[in-house]
């Protein structure tokens, strides 16, 4: 049971990649990319957890009490912003792809075939 969050993280990473590889719709590809990123959130937060500890807000509890790791929370916050913005950018590209190619299926995007 102690290993379970880490297994979830590894699974999410690969399942997200599967989504990107097998998707027939670019919107689904971008969402799968978000799933890949989610694996790093699970891993980071799982790493920072301390058993039986409280949230790192010391407004009403003594500073010396057992608190979870705040640093990973900051890292995950930054990661979420990165993921949201990259997804926005990619979805804007998907909108334009629909306009130019008439389709959002990766199989139909052809001009860069070598």
């Amino acid at each position, binding site marked *: 049971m102690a290993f379970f969050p880490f297994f979830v*993280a590894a699974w999410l*990473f*690969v399942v997200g*990649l599967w989504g*990107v*590889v*097998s*998707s027939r719709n*670019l919107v689904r*590809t*971008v969402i799968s*990319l978000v799933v*890949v*990123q989610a*694996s*790093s959130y699970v*891993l*980071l937060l799982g*790493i920072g957890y301390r058993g039986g500890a409280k949230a790192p807000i010391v407004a009403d509890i003594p500073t010396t009490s057992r608190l979870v790791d705040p*640093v*990973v929370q900051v*890292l995950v916050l*930054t*990661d979420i912003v*990165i993921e949201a*913005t*990259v997804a926005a*950018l*990619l979805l804007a*590209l*998907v909108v*334009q*792809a629909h306009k*130019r*190619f008439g389709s959002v299926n*990766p*199989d139909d*995007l*052809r*001009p*860069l*075939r*070598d």
Partner: protein
Amino acid sequence: MAPHISALPVVVPFLAGPLVVAVGQFAPRWFNDSVGMLAAVAATALCALLAVHAAQHPFAYWLGGWTPRYGTTIGISLSIDTLGAGLATFSALLVTAALTYSLRYFDAVEGLYHGLMLLFMAGMVGFCLTGDLFNLLVFFEVMSAAAYALTAYKIEERGPIQGAINFGITNSIGAYGMFIGLALLYARTGALNMAEIGAALGSHHADWLVIVAMVLLFGGFLTKAAAVPLHFWLADAHAVAPIPVCVLFSGVMVELGVYAVARLYWQVFAGTLSAHEIAVRAVFVGLGVMTALLGAVMCFLQRHVKRLLAFSTISHVGMFICGVAFLTGKGIAGVGTYLVGHGLTKAALFMCAGVLLHRFATIDEYDLHGRGRELPLVGLLMGVGALMLAALPPFTTFMGKSLLEEAAAGAGYNWVIVVFIFVSAMTGGAVLRVTGRVFLGWGPTEGPHPGQAEAAREDTHEETGSPTHTPPLMVLVPAVLLVGVLLLGLIPGAVPGIERFAAQFVEHKAYAGWVLHGLRVSVPVLPPSHISADDYGYSLISTVGALAVASLGLFGRPVRARLPDALGHPAEAAAGVLHGVHSGHIGDYITWWTAGVGVIGGVCLVALR
């Protein structure tokens, strides 16, 4: 004593960018240009000052005043040594050149183009200067976000959309793998500062966690660096991005991936992997050689000039990876010197291609057959650039290549020198072939794979102005860059200086001292290495090889017709397979990425136990 200006090379473009984006839609073009140029020049000067200061002794600048305390780091440091600051200066310099080139020619949308270029520069500069692993990834993403947007600049065409999607998805997956690698290192050491992680890991033997973290981190940076098989996005992105953006991609962005691998190895992993140097060398030299060979062959098979230049970048990056993989100071010195020479040369070549695109609305080698006769100066620049790629003395590229060759010999990898010669000959030869066909009208007018020509013709213009008159600035800037490649290597003390700073770069035990404890570490004194006769010999072979390759490309039809079927058919089939693999489909690219990182991971886990 860290200079107060240490954070400014990042802050100046971060202030200028929003200014230009917010005000640019109302302001005249000259305002955006001026703000952009000023910020770029200022960043270049600031980085140069930092490099000079770091030459006395490298230093760490703790942001927010959060110096290390109670035995650990809390804040973020900029760990500035001369190689890092020098690379930052080079990045800012290329951005200045690209913005100058865009002055007269580029159809900039409101302030958005300038803003994104400035943010791109800020990302690159921050990437080179930072000492914190998470901060490195953040600036990697700043660079990448700006790059994705700039790639898709010409939204009215289909190619840029697809190219940007492939670029965005591939590089993002690389980045997400890196976050997992970072999480693993944080879990093990409880630190995010690279020097501290290195010190914490250094006393222990590398176990599976450290190896997988290394593979994931290197995997992400090697995706940016376009190592095989993580390279598919690069040619797609270069084929469609506007010329000034390609200048930056090939000139410095891709090389920053190699820099990060070197930096991470020496600051973080060198201590813990010191028992496995031979295995690490073998794995990454193998990767570098594969990249170099595939890039060189694909380069020769292209008729789309921008794709041709993109594949030549990939092959040179393969050489850089080999140089880093030799795990010596001389290898790093060779990479540093060659990187500067190659970056300036590739920038100039892309700018020349831009002149052709502007004039003739196509960048297909056969479409342009003979039409370059009215642009003799551009032809001369392209020819000289090709010879620089072939590492002809006395250019900076030759200096770098000779250092790389000596590093190869010193590490016991003499056979890699053959690969280097092959790469120089093939890439230089391909560009010479283009020069001969376009500017001299040599060779046949019809080529294989006519389908590729469609992608090379431009439907709409990224440029302003009339196609019959080429603004002199568009020829002046590449000329200046090529003069730089000629002169930089000849500056007395320049190359020996790089060797000394490289020797400092690989002193992994010293990092904890100067980053965490503020010790003053001086630059080691090295006897300058001399260029041996062997190096001149190799360079002669590669230049002659380039001429031979170009001649084969231009006049080789009768030779190919007379080849026995036993040779000709498999070669055709192999070329077909290579073209087919570069399919443009994102699913294929990510499958190759997963396979590549998986294989590298598996090999490392077995070899580095």
